[in-house]
C-alpha cells in the first residue's frame, strides 16, 4: 500500500476478570477515511475506544498511529499523539465559555501563570471558523444547542491537532437537520486528512457518511465492509448474527375509546389545545421535530408537568393529574426519554426499580413483602425478557435495552393501562430494538393503550396504528396507516409553508 494507515489495530485482546471483552481485534483506518465501528451494545466498541484513548490498556496486541506503535497509559498520552474522543455525553462545563471549554485542563498562559483569555478566544475562533463560524467563543456553553456543543467539541479536537477523531454516538440527540450540518463538518475534516471513527446505532446516518465499517460481535471483528456496496440489512444481520425480519405491523385496535384528551394545554411549555383519543389496544405514534412538544405532552399526561387547561378522561372518567402519583393511580405509566436521569435508580436492584411505584401492592399493614416482589419480578421480567435474568442485580449494570425493559416491567407491575413511551429505543441496539417493538405489540394485544413518541420515522411507522404529528406545541395532523409515508410525516412536521404564521390549526381527531 502506498500510504501508511493513520490507525492500525493489530491483534488487540482485552480481558477483564472473568470476561474476555476483546479478542484479536485487527483493522486499519486510512487518512481521510470515515470508518464506522458497528456492533450491538456489549460487542466491545466502547472497550476498543477506551484503549484507543488511553483510558484502558490492552491485555495483548498493539496499535499504531501513522505507523508508530502507541503506548498510551493515560488519556493525555493519546491526546498528545493526536487522538481525540468525542463522547455521546459531552464533557463540558456549562457555565464556562466556549473558549474556556476548548482550553479546559490546559489553558493558555500569559506571564507564566495568568490565563490569556483573549488569545484563547482568538485561537478558538480560528478553529471554529473552519467548521462553524457562527459560534461565538465568548458565549457560555449552556447557551448553545446540543448540536453546536458537538461542533465545539470537534473544534477542540482540531485545536489539539487531532489526526484521529473517534465519535461515540455523536448524533443521539440531534435533529435530522442538525445531523446534516454535523455531517458536513465531519466530511470536511476527513477531506483534510483526519481519520474518523464513527460509532452510531443510527444505520441511516452511518450509511450516509461512512465509507467503510468494521462490524464487531462479542468482542471480535466479524467483518470489514464497504458501506457503499453493502445493504443495510446485511450489516445488521452481521451485527446481530441472525436475520432480523422486517416484520409487518399487526394491529390490535378495538372499538372502545379508553383515553380521551381534550384541549390540553401546559402551564410551563408551549403545548396548547391538544385533543386526541386512544382506543383499547391501539398504538398511537407521535412524530414531530425536536421541540414540537411531544415529550412535553407525555409529561402532562404522566402528571409530571402541570396542566393549564383541558381534560383527560380514562374509560369515561375525568382524571386529576396533579403529580405522577395521581397519574400512576389512574393507570398511566411513563417511560421517560432520558432513562438515566428520569428512569432508573442506578444502584438499586432491578426488582426494586420495577416495584417502586407499586410498593403498596406488595405491602401488608405497612410491611413490604420482599418475597412477593421477587415472585412478581420473576414473572414480569421474564415476560419482558430481561437479560441477564438476575433480578437482584443493580439496574445500572444492565445494558440500555434491558434497563428499558425493566422500566416497562415497572408499569406492568403497577397495572398501568395507558403506557407513554418517549423515544423507547434511543441509544439501544438493534436486537433490543426489535424486542421492544414486539413488546409494544404484545402489550397492545393485551388491551393496553400505548402512545409512542419517536424521532425515528421508520420506528413510528413500524409500531403505530395511527400517527399524530405535532408542530409548535399543537397537533398538525393525525394520519391513519394508509397515509403514512416519511414524506407525509415530514411535510406535516415542518408545516406546509414553513415560516408562515399558522392562523388556522387543523383539529382532527377521531
Amino acid at each position, binding site marked *: 500500500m502506498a500510504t501508511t494507515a493513520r490507525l492500525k489495530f493489530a491483534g488487540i485482546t482485552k480481558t477483564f476478570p472473568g470476561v474476555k471483552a476483546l479478542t484479536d481485534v485487527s483493522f486499519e483506518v486510512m487518512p481521510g477515511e470515515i470508518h464506522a465501528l458497528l456492533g450491538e451494545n456489549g460487542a466491545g466498541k466502547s472497550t476498543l475506544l477506551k484503549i484507543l484513548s488511553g483510558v484502558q490498556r490492552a491485555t495483548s496486541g498493539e496499535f499504531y498511529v501513522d505507523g508508530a506503535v502507541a503506548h498510551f497509559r493515560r488519556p493525555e498520552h493519546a491526546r498528545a499523539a493526536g487522538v481525540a474522543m468525542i463522547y455521546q455525553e459531552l464533557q463540558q462545563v456549562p457555565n464556562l465559555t466556549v473558549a474556556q471549554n476548548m482550553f479546559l485542563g490546559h489553558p493558555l498562559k500569559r506571564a507564566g501563570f495568568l490565563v490569556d483569555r483573549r488569545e484563547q478566544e482568538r485561537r478558538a475562533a480560528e478553529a471554529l471558523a473552519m467548521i462553524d463560524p457562527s459560534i461565538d467563543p465568548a458565549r457560555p456553553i449552556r447557551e448553545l444547542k446540543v448540536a453546536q456543543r458537538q461542533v465545539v467539541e470537534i473544534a477542540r479536537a482540531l485545536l489539539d491537532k487531532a489526526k484521529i477523531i473517534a465519535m461515540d454516538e455523536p448524533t443521539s440527540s440531534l435533529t435530522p437537520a442538525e445531523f446534516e450540518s454535523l455531517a458536513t463538518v465531519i466530511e470536511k475534516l476527513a477531506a483534510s486528512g483526519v481519520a474518523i471513527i464513527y460509532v452510531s446505532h443510527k444505520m441511516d446516518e452511518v450509511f450516509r457518511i461512512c465509507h467503510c465499517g468494521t462490524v464487531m460481535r462479542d468482542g471480535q471483528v466479524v467483518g470489514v465492509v464497504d458501506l457503499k456496496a453493502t445493504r443495510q440489512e446485511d450489516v445488521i444481520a452481521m451485527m446481530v448474527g441472525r436475520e432480523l425480519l422486517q416484520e409487518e405491523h399487526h394491529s390490535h385496535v378495538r372499538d372502545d375509546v379508553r383515553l380521551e384528551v381534550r384541549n390540553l394545554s401546559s402551564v410551563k411549555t408551549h403545548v396548547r389545545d391538544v385533543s386526541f383519543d386512544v382506543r383499547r389496544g391501539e398504538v398511537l405514534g407521535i412524530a414531530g421535530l425536536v421541540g414540537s412538544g411531544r415529550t412535553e405532552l407525555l409529561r402532562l399526561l*404522566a402528571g*409530571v408537568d402541570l396542566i393549564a387547561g383541558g381534560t383527560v378522561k380514562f374509560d369515561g372518567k375525568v382524571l386529576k393529574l396533579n*403529580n*405522577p*402519583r395521581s*397519574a*400512576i*393511580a389512574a393507570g398511566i405509566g*411513563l417511560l*421517560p426519554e432520558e432513562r438515566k*436521569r*428520569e*428512569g*432508573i*435508580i*442506578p*444502584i*438499586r*436492584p432491578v426488582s*426494586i426499580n420495577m*416495584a*417502586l*411505584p407499586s*410498593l*403498596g401492592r406488595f*405491602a401488608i399493614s*405497612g*410491611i*413490604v413483602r*420482599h418475597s412477593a416482589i421477587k415472585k412478581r419480578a420473576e414473572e414480569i421480567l421474564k415476560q419482558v425478557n430481561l437479560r441477564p435474568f*438476575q433480578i*437482584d*442485580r*443493580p439496574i445500572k*449494570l444492565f445494558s440500555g435495552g434491558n434497563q428499558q425493559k425493566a422500566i416497562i416491567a*415497572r408499569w406492568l407491575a403497577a397495572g398501568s393501562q395507558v403506557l407513554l413511551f418517549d423515544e423507547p429505543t434511543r441509544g439501544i441496539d438493534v436486537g433490543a430494538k426489535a424486542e421492544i417493538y414486539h413488546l409494544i405489540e404484545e402489550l397492545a394485544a393485551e388491551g393496553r393503550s400505548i402512545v409512542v413518541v419517536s424521532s425515528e420515522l421508520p420506528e413510528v411507522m413500524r409500531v403505530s396504528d395511527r400517527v399524530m404529528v405535532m408542530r409548535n406545541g399543537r397537533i398538525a395532523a393525525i394520519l391513519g396507516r394508509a397515509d403514512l409515508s416519511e414524506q407525509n410525516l415530514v411535510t406535516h412536521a415542518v408545516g406546509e409553508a414553513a415560516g408562515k404564521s399558522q392562523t388556522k390549526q387543523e383539529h382532527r381527531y377521531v
Partner: protein
Amino acid sequence: MSDIASNSPARPSRLFSSFSVRDAGTLIGLVLILAVFAVLVPGFLSERNLINILQQSSINACLALGMTLVIISGGIDLSVGPTAAIAAVISATLLVSGYPVPLAIVSGLGIGVLCGLVNGVLVAHVGLQPFIVTLGTLSTYRAIALIYTGGNPVLGIPPEFRALFNGSLAGIPSSVVIVAAVAAVAWILLKKTPIGEYLLAVGGNEEAAYVSGVPIALTKVTAYVISGTLAALASLILIGRLGAAEPILGNLWELDAIAAAAIGGASLMGGKGSVIGTILGAIILGAMRNGLTLMNVQAFYQLLATGLIILFAMMIDRVTRGRE
C-alpha cells in the same frame, strides 16, 4: 461491588442476607480495634468495660441512626446538637417545675419532631439545600436554647426520670436497651417498609423517583423528623445521666453522627446506607475513645485518632469498591 456480592449468593438466610459485605467490613474494623486495645489495655475486653463502651456509644448511635436516614435521602442534618439542646432544656424545665415525667418526655420528643419538621419543610417544600438549611437552624436552634435558659443550666432533674434513662435492665444500661430498640425499628423502616425504599430511591435518583410516583417531599420530611426526634431522645438519655440540662449541650454532635454513618457505609451522595453499619460505626468511635482514655492518652490524640479512623474507613471504602 459490595452491593452485588451481597445480593447474589443463594440466600442463606433472610437475616444473614441483609448483612451486606460492606457491613462485614465495618465489623472486621471493629474487631481489629477491639483486638488492638485488648493487647494494649488490660481489662479492656471485660464485660464491664464492653458494656461501658456500648453505653458511651449509645448517644452517638441514636443520633447517627437518624442521620443515616437523612443521608440516605441525599441530605444532611447539621442541626442535631442544638435540636437536642432545646429538647433537653425544655424537658428539664418541665421536670424541675414538677410536671409528670411522661409529659416531659413527650414534650422533649415533640420539640425534636418540630425541629425536624422545620428542616424538612425548608428542604422539601421550599427547596433549599439541606446543608444550608441545617446550618441555619444549627445556629437558630442553639440561640433558642440559650435565650430560653438565659445561658444557664437547668439543674435538679428528679430521680424518677433519671432512673428511667440512666438505670439498667437485667444488667444492661437502659440507654443501650433504648438505642437497640430504636435501631431495630430503623432497620425495619429501611428494609421492610415503603418509606425505606422511598428514601433509597430519592437519594439514588430524585428525578426518577418522582416520575415513578415516589412522594418526594413526604419522604424527605420524614427523614428530618426522625432525625430531630432521635436527637431529642439522645438528649433525654444525656440529661438522665447528668441530672442537668445545659443549653450548650450537644456541641459538635452532628460531626460524630455523620462520622458514624459514613464509617458504617452511608454515602453522602445519597441512596446508600446501613442501619447495622451505622451502629457498628458508632461503636467503633466509642471503643476508640474508651481504649485511648484507659491508656491515658491525651484528648488531643483522641481527636487525631478519630480523624484518622474516618479517613482510613473512607479509603478502604474507595479501594474495595474499586472499579465503578
